């Protein structure tokens, strides 16, 4: 019997290894895109001069998520405005294969004549070698939404908002919900190694040290791993652990919606409010019934639009990608490339600002 259990355990181990190893091979997303990319190969042999057309790829963290499609809409808008005759592709891995899939797509794009790629990086520094190889092959590499932490292989990061401003916006929402006397709250984040969430929470903690926020007390930071189930359970666990907690701040769209649903299901909305970064369409119900009276977000359409302008201008040589350069980004106006203060190295273009949603404007934004 014991031998059989051992066999069972080793089988389980093998499953997990197989799962990790086989999933990339099965996921069809990158392969399916290959023929389209091959078609653009011929014109790309020549260096991308002005007017020649720049084949470009916009890569989300993974496919099937609304905000990334909104970013593609924005990029497409810029693509048509500029009149780039080459193709703009929206290529991303499937959800269960995000990290390996992103690296695979980047590597393939390099060999398929793509001249510029815009990445919402979900692979941390693991993507850096592939990005460096792409740079050496003459490709323009721009990140948006989520940067390469070490900035290696990346020319410019198009930042949605200033990471420090995120801290201020969250602290202000907390103060506005908890009232003048302040109160106790907890943070429900994505995964412990999510680069942008960690930077925002660090910014929030710095803001809380200022005297005018002294009556806000951060009890604990917990992680729901951007899964509905984990986030829902974590939100209820916070309520059980801290009977005097009045607010859950979730700087993740999955976390904020799951926490709000948990409070609504258990009839806790009068006692504990939910706030953070959320999508108007997903939060509509909870904002109108008072479970999540205020939350914030930026426009992903604008983010895609701006990322396209930066990548196109770098690929055509209109921008060199050095500190202090100023450029016009179509309808969005003038922007400057600056040193990224939130990382050790790297340059950024800062978009901003936040929109704060409440019962008065959430319905219009949810359409």
């Amino acid at each position, binding site marked *: 019997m*014991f031998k059989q259990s051992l066999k*069972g355990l080793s089988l389980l181990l093998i499953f997990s290894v197989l799962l990790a190893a*086989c999933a990339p091979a*099965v996921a069809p997303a990158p392969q399916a895109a290959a023929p389209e990319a091959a078609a653009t190969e011929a014109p790309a042999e020549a260096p991308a001069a002005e007017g020649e057309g720049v084949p470009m790829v916009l890569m989300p963290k993974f496919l*099937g998520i609304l905000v990334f499609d909104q970013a593609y809409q924005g990029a497409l808008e810029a693509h048509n405005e500029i009149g780039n005759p080459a193709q703009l592709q929206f290529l991303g891995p499937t959800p269960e294969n995000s990290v390996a899939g992103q690296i695979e797509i980047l590597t393939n794009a390099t060999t398929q004549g793509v001249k510029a790629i815009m990445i919402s990086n979900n692979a941390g520094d693991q993507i850096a070698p592939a990005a460096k190889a792409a740079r050496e092959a003459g490709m323009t590499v721009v990140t948006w939404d989520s940067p390469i932490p070490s900035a290696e292989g990346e020319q410019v990061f198009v930042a949605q908002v200033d990471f420090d401003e995120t801290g201020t916006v969250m602290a202000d929402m907390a103060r506005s919900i908890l009232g003048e006397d302040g109160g106790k709250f907890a943070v429900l984040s994505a995964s412990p190694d999510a680069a942008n969430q960690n930077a925002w929470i660090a910014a929030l903690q710095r803001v809380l040290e200022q005297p005018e926020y002294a009556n806000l007390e951060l009890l604990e930071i917990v992680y729901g791993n951007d899964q509905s189930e984990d986030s829902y359970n974590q939100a*209820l666990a916070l309520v059980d652990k801290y009977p005097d907690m009045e607010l859950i701040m979730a700087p993740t769209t999955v976390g904020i919606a799951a926490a709000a649903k948990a409070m609504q299901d258990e009839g806790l909305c009068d006692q504990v409010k939910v706030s953070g970064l959320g999508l108007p369409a997903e939060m509509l119900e909870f904002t109108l019934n008072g479970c999540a009276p205020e939350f914030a977000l930026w426009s992903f359409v604008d983010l895609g639009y701006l990322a396209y302008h930066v990548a196109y201008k770098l690929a055509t040589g209109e921008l060199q990608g050095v500190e202090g350069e100023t450029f016009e980004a179509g309808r969005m106006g003038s922007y400057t490339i600056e040193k990224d203060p939130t990382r050790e190295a790297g340059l950024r273009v800062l978009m901003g600002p936040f929109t704060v949603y409440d019962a008065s404007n959430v319905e219009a934004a949810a359409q």
Partner: protein
Amino acid sequence: MNAIRRRFQPEQVRELVLIALIIGIIIFFGTQIENYFSPRTFTRISTSVAVVAIVAVGQTLVILTRNIDLSVGSIVGFTAYVVGTYLAANNDLPPALAVLAAVGIGAVMGAFNGMVVAYGRVPAIIVTLGTLAIYRTLLVEISGARSVLTSALPRWLVNLPPVNVFSIGAIDIRLLFAVAVLVVIVFQLIVTYSAWGRRLYAIGSNPDAARIAGFPAQRIVFTAFVLSGALAGLAGFVFLARFGNITVVAGQGIELQSVAAAVVGGVNINGGIGSPFGAFLGALLVDIIDNSLIRWLAISEFLRNALLGLLILLAVATDTVIMNRLRKLWSRHELQVATGQAPTEKGKGHRAV
């Protein structure tokens, strides 16, 4: 003592061992966590275990036949999304039809797995690993990056999670938990008393013998996959009711949770041993440990996963040791009966199973 031995087999006592372990764990956390012994804790754990418990029952049926179904997580996500999208567009669809649609979609996806495994004779792990990715990609394709939104769903569905079937004192039995328990009871009865259920065990214990004995092994394996898919579809409906907002990542990872629940619950991965009730206890054990650890102030977020793994290993190891002891007791007794000898030192050599 002999009467007890004749009446029960070690495998039947196993569930009692698991229950004892669960009680032990609850008592331990009761000493560590303030207000742990409250109706609230019961509600939290019972509602959180419902989805995995339903999937684990289907997984058990498949594992009993010496196969495995790794596609259940994708089936949960797919049915939750498709049924959710349809309900969002047609708010007046009768609830019974919505549940039926979820079960039906799941059954079709399970039937595809079953067809390839049973009639195509492709190893189940390969087939379902493939459909795990295929069903998920299908979901990504048809979703067009739109999510199911809570605000678009009919009210009866959004308000389903807090619905009580009945209360025992201050303890609420929620509808979704009751559904899971009902599923466990029905399938426990099926595998114990129906001919089809007994054949699951026969096929898993010795597929060759079962075939020679003339069992329609292919059809039985096929049906097991259909039921596993159907139950995953039902779990998808529960998932939809519980979370409202459904994106393309819904249900990811449930396949491994269900396998873990089954294995912890004493379902042998080589088939032939285990029961839906055992898998339910396994799911409950894992969920109690998980939900208690996130409420235990002494444990940091970063230690929690390691501790969860350690506690599950400890529970399974304890279970194995106790079960081995019990088996020795039983086989010694059988040896006695067979040879008419008192247990001697010589007899010890034959005890190992």
